[in-house]
């Protein structure tokens, strides 16, 4: 490589082979991205059907289709009522959290930003816990309340880590503190309520065992709206990767854009937290893997992260309910066990953020 480069500098007219190399490299990357998308879709479909069939009840694929669409089947009905909601919730929440991570990373210019780590999810979960504990009849506004909790947490992190600029490390440190505060508060309320309010406990522990189709219909519109907004802001996310002044010179109101995209990210993280509980590291790992496989252009990164997020959450949930059956380990716990070491690996490998 070195010799090629210096050759090229001495004889610019002999640059042709290098140009072809660039093209080949770009085509290889495009091919890798296409394959990654294909494989991820395939894996998600396989996992979806596997998850339907994993557990004490088992039905064949034929039986399943027949039971769903042709005639009533007891087993299929039970699976439809118990397993389907949690599978769909896993996928929706996974996609939402992963895309939320992508957006936070773009807005904060910090590849280590994760809605769980920087306290957004715990802010949302705390307010959701408050509603569930004190005004359970208002359960239908839980997503909205969770959103405001998330906004409050984000506001805290943003303001407290602002010192004439946002240093990646300071955001993480402030986030850790805010996260600890809200997690502590949520746990405190959980304990004070005797730990027997199952709704409260399920938010705190990220337990999605008892989710129903009602929860699916609560989560669905918000996640779809959030993902739609994320797609709309793809161009802005890309431009935010430039220096702020440069983006501004291209006619982008950087501050306003930051706020709007942050709100979308908070929305995605809070809503999924309200239904599926606080999950850490998902919003960190998925976009990171995405950048390696499909590149950092948000045009590919956003959809790929949505797919991979759905897959990862569903995988964590499915492993969680099989690994020690009949006991269940929540997806949040699985993600922490896998995510913690991964986060350390990232810090160790990246000279840019941990120096």
């Amino acid at each position: 490589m070195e010799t090629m480069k210096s050759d090229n500098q001495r004889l610019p007219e002999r640059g042709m082979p290098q140009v072809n190399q660039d093209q080949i490299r770009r085509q290889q990357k495009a091919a890798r991205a296409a394959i990654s998308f294909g494989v991820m879709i395939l894996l998600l479909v396989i996992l979806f059907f596997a998850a339907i069939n994993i557990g004490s009840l088992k039905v064949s694929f034929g039986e399943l289709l027949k039971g769903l669409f042709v005639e009533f089947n007891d087993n299929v009905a039970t699976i439809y009522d118990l397993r389907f909601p949690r599978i769909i919730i896993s996928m929706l929440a996974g996609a939402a959290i992963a895309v939320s991570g992508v957006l936070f990373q773009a807005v904060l210019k910090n590849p280590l930003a994760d809605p769980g780590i920087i306290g957004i999810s715990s802010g949302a979960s705390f307010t959701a816990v408050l509603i569930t504990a004190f005004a359970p009849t208002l359960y239908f506004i839980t997503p909205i309340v969770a959103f405001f909790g998330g906004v409050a947490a984000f506001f805290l992190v943003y303001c407290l880590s602002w010192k004439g600029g946002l240093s990646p490390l300071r955001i993480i440190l402030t986030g850790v503190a805010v996260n600890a505060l809200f997690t502590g508060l949520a746990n405190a309320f959980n304990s004070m309520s005797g730990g027997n309010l199952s709704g409260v406990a399920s938010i705190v522990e990220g337990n999605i065992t008892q989710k129903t189709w009602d929860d699916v219909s609560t989560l669905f519109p918000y996640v779809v709206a959030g993902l739609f907004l994320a797609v709309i802001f793809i161009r802005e996310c890309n431009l935010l990767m430039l220096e702020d002044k440069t983006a501004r010179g291209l006619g982008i109101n950087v501050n306003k854009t930051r706020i709007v995209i942050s709100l979308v990210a908070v929305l995605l993280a809070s809503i999924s937290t309200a239904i599926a509980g606080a999950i850490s590291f998902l919003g960190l790992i998925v976009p990171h893997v995405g950048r390696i496989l499909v590149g950092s252009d948000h045009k590919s990164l956003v959809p790929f992260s949505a797919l991979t997020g759905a897959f990862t959450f569903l995988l964590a949930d499915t492993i969680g309910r099989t690994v020690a059956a009949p006991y269940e380990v929540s997806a949040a716990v699985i993600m922490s066990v896998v995510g913690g070491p991964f986060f350390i690996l990232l810090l160790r490998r990246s000279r840019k953020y941990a120096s």
Partner: protein
Amino acid sequence: MQVSENTAMEVKDLSFAYGNNKVLRQISLAVDAGKITTIMGANGCGKTTLFSLMTKNLTPGKGKVKLDGKNIQNLHLTEFAKKVSIVHQYNSSADDITVERLVSYGRTPHQKMMAGKNEEDARLIEWAMDVTNVTKYRDREMSKLSGGQQQRVWLAMALAQNTQILFLDEPTTYLDIRYQIEILKLIQKLNREYGITIVMVLHDINQAIHFSNWIIGLKDGKVVVEGAPDEVITMETLQQLYGIRLSVTTVEGQKFVLTV
């Protein structure tokens, strides 16, 4: 300089302060269309602040900056970006973005949200890459380019904006001498062949003399030197600007300042 029909940008009674620290004191000046104007001065003279005010990155305390007779404060950022492009001193991008994609970002102010590239966009992106001589790297990733090559790509991005005026903040800062000259010659070519009005901040006095039509020298937030470089650069004005005695000599009809 008098404000005339040929004025591309006019600065009128401009003052700016950070708290009690007055950085600019009632500055007035005019940038001639089709010329290369260079802002000079010692560290802390207010040239960066003036640059930021003229590029709509700061809001004036008093006075105004006018573009085509309109106060730029009243111009929407997108409108401003269609008329003025800026290459900042420090730039960064995603490591894996290709040159062509980055240059295409220059079309942002002309594109509607979610709209793709049209023919005009494609033509200007090609032109910008051609002029700056980066077409051969179009598929290469930014992180694989040298500093000089990267600077040309940033310049290409600004050119793709297709504006009347181009601002450059110390465009040679991170470059070695060969790339410094290369980029300055390129800027000169943009001015001569395409009639683009250039406003830049330069540190090197000799480069400023050689490559500009007009010099604006700042000292303590005021314009103390203004005019064609051959006329206004003297031992006395340099002493005034930088507070140091420097010999000025002429070699083959060209003025040089001995900076050692």
